[in-house]
């Protein structure tokens, strides 16, 4: 009897061992290795590569009030670890991420910044999961105004107004991160939405940058006659439809209330002559978008421009980096899409990009203080210029330097009265935006664009949402 019991105990022990051994064999614990993983390694590399920049950072940091640092250290004298969650995968931006972390950690040896990269498609779900699980990142990226409103309403965002780094940012861009006058996010960059063109092709066919609709049509006709596709249009990707419509629509409806009026049903599409004019103009350039714009995606369009098949792309200023990374020899310029017949009246659109936010951590003062300090460093001139240079973007810093890119300088060369800045304006949220562009796509894919029917359906769809 006893022997049988012993056998059972032995069998049980063996079974448990079999279960545990493979787990033990896995060995590596992320908690320990994470700290010494990529973040630290890349940070060390960046330290080695950017020694001069670091020194500057150290100096910059030392100018901060001593009291703040003391308070942070008072949290127990141990290293304070903060987390920065983002969705950047572009090599240039990642280089900036490594650089700012390395600089910050060198200047603040008692603080450690961990990054968590989540792909854009899963980013928001993951962020919400972490917040709901009391594991919110201290610093994170949010997409747009509607997200700022949503997260601030849930009291998850820290009021950034008191951070001294805010003073480094162009005040016109700060409107974009405000909800009811409180600064909850700071956009890192601003994108220009315009026509990106191959300067060499224009030179080859003796073409001038067009400033009126007729000149634009003339440029398209010359290019088409010479076997060059005037516009690379990747309408299979929704944002390509969106931006090609916006560059025509927004300058015509420059009234900042346009979106709000449509959302609140104060004005209808059917009675909006400017909207109809914009759609007619958009449709008139359709013949210059090649054989199959609805079957072409964004990646293909960039390829077409990079290899000289297409001469122009209407999209955001990230086009410059995207096309140049395929063909580094290409010579790209930017001009505003002509929407009027008067010369030099075209308007360039500027929209701030995603904003960085600070988590309203009410549980851990020391961690919040460390995150505030890191956030301040992200808003510094040094960090902003590094971001612009590495990411090939227009920084939201005051007097942003874009001398590294002639194309971005083209976009910045437009005077204020010919620039439409969306910062602080209420645009369509994702629900309205999806319905708006889906309906346009539905009608545009037909043989002829029936603008009246399009307006009627847009009114119907917007009314359905507002109910």
């Amino acid at each position: 009897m006893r022997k049988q019991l012993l056998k059972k105990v032995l069998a049980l022990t063996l079974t448990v061992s079999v279960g545990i051994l493979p787990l033990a064999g896995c060995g590596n614990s992320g908690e320990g290795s994470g700290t010494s993983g990529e973040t630290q390694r890349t940070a060390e590399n960046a330290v080695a590569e950017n020694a001069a920049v670091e020194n500057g950072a150290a100096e910059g940091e030392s100018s901060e009030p001593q009291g703040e640092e003391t308070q942070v250290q008072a949290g127990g004298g141990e290293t304070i670890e903060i987390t920065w969650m983002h969705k950047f995968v572009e090599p240039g931006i990642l280089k900036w991420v490594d650089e700012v972390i390395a600089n910050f950690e060198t200047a603040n040896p008692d603080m450690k910044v961990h990054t968590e990269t989540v792909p854009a498609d899963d980013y928001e779900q993951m962020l919400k999961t972490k917040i709901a699980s009391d594991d919110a990142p201290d610093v994170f990226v949010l997409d747009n105004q509607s997200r700022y409103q949503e997260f601030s309403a849930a009291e998850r965002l820290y009021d950034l107004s008191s951070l001294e780094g805010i003073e480094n940012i162009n005040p016109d861009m700060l409107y974009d991160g405000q909800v009811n006058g409180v600064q909850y996010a700071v956009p890192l960059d601003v994108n220009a939405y315009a026509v990106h063109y191959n300067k060499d092709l224009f030179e080859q066919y003796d073409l001038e940058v067009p400033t009126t609709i007729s000149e634009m049509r003339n440029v398209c006709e010359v290019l088409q006659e010479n076997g060059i596709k005037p516009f690379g249009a990747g309408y299979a990707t929704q944002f390509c439809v969106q931006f090609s419509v916006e560059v025509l629509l927004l300058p015509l409806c420059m009234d900042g209330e346009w979106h709000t009026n449509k959302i609140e049903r104060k004005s209808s599409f059917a009675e909006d002559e400017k909207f109809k004019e914009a759609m007619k103009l958009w449709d008139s350039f359709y013949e210059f978008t090649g054989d199959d714009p609805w079957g072409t995606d964004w990646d293909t369009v960039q390829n077409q421009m990079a290899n000289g098949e297409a001469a122009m792309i209407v999209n955001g200023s990230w086009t410059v980096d995207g096309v140049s990374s395929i063909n580094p020899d290409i010579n790209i310029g930017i001009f505003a899409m002509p929407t009027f017949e008067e010369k030099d009246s075209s308007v360039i659109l500027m929209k701030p990009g995603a904003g960085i936010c600070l988590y309203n951590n009410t549980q851990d003062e020391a961690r919040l203080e460390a995150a505030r300090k890191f956030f301040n460093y992200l808003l510094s001139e040094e960090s902003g210029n590094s971001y612009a240079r590495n990411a090939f973007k227009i920084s939201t810093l005051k007097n942003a330097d874009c001398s590294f890119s002639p194309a971005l300088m083209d976009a910045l060369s437009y005077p204020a009265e010919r620039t439409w800045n969306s910062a602080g304006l209420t645009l369509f949220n994702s629900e309205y935006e999806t319905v708006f562009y889906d309906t346009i796509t539905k009608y545009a894919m037909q043989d002829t664009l029936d603008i009246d029917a399009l307006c009627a359906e847009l009114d119907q769809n917007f009314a359905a949402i507002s109910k």
Partner: protein
Amino acid sequence: MREKRIVNVFQILFLLLVMFVFLFPSYIALLTSWKTRIEVSRSALSFPETFAIQNYIEAIRKSQFLTALKNSCAITFPSVLLIVICSSMGGYSIARHSAKHKIFKYLDRLYVSSLMIPFQILMIPVYRMYKSLRLLNTLQGMVLMLTGVSIAYATFLYVGFVKSIPRELEEAALIDGCGPYKAFFVIVFPMLKPITTTVAALHVMWLWNDFNISLVLMQKESVRPLTVKQYYFFGQYASDYGMAFAAAILTMLPVVIFFMAAQKYLVEGISGGAVKG
């Protein structure tokens, strides 16, 4: 005789055509992985002008390939081992005892109904639980989770198979003095080889390719498996297809090697299962 030969030729041609269709995506992936970005922009089907080994070097560097490969192996293979051990025992118990004991019948139903629950619903509670148990960002935690979410289906497969095995052999073993565990491992388990091979092969493939669970539970770069590292090559507005395909080829390679090495056993197991069924 001549007719038979013509039929054979057509069969071979048909099989070649099918093979071509199946291999075409892999062919494109392989081709693209050797091209520079400008070559990819010109044509998807053209041969690479210069073999861009740089794509592979960069893909290995960016995805920290060796670490990610080690993580994928450390997650997949122990999980599959645990799944096979636990599911075969569970499936055997349910199949043999559900007629006499209602609890086994309910367990069977519970297992099957758990298949209906998507991971998204479990995500927040699991995340909280793992955080409090300090299992986040650990390979052990990941093995437990993958085993947990896979056991129900594997058990379901085992239950069906065990029911088709005659009881007489086990009964004979029990009469000869075997305990229930010895009877299971010495007599029954070898007879489960066909379904075990199927379960193992399917789960190696599924767990190796898992993305969602890894993304949620493995947030530190040092513990992320190969599949999660893939997205580094796809930006919001720009993608590097040459490098992305190089990384994809590298990710596929271990599984392809595994299947080629184990092909004989897999085919034996699956066809054995077919005969038994």
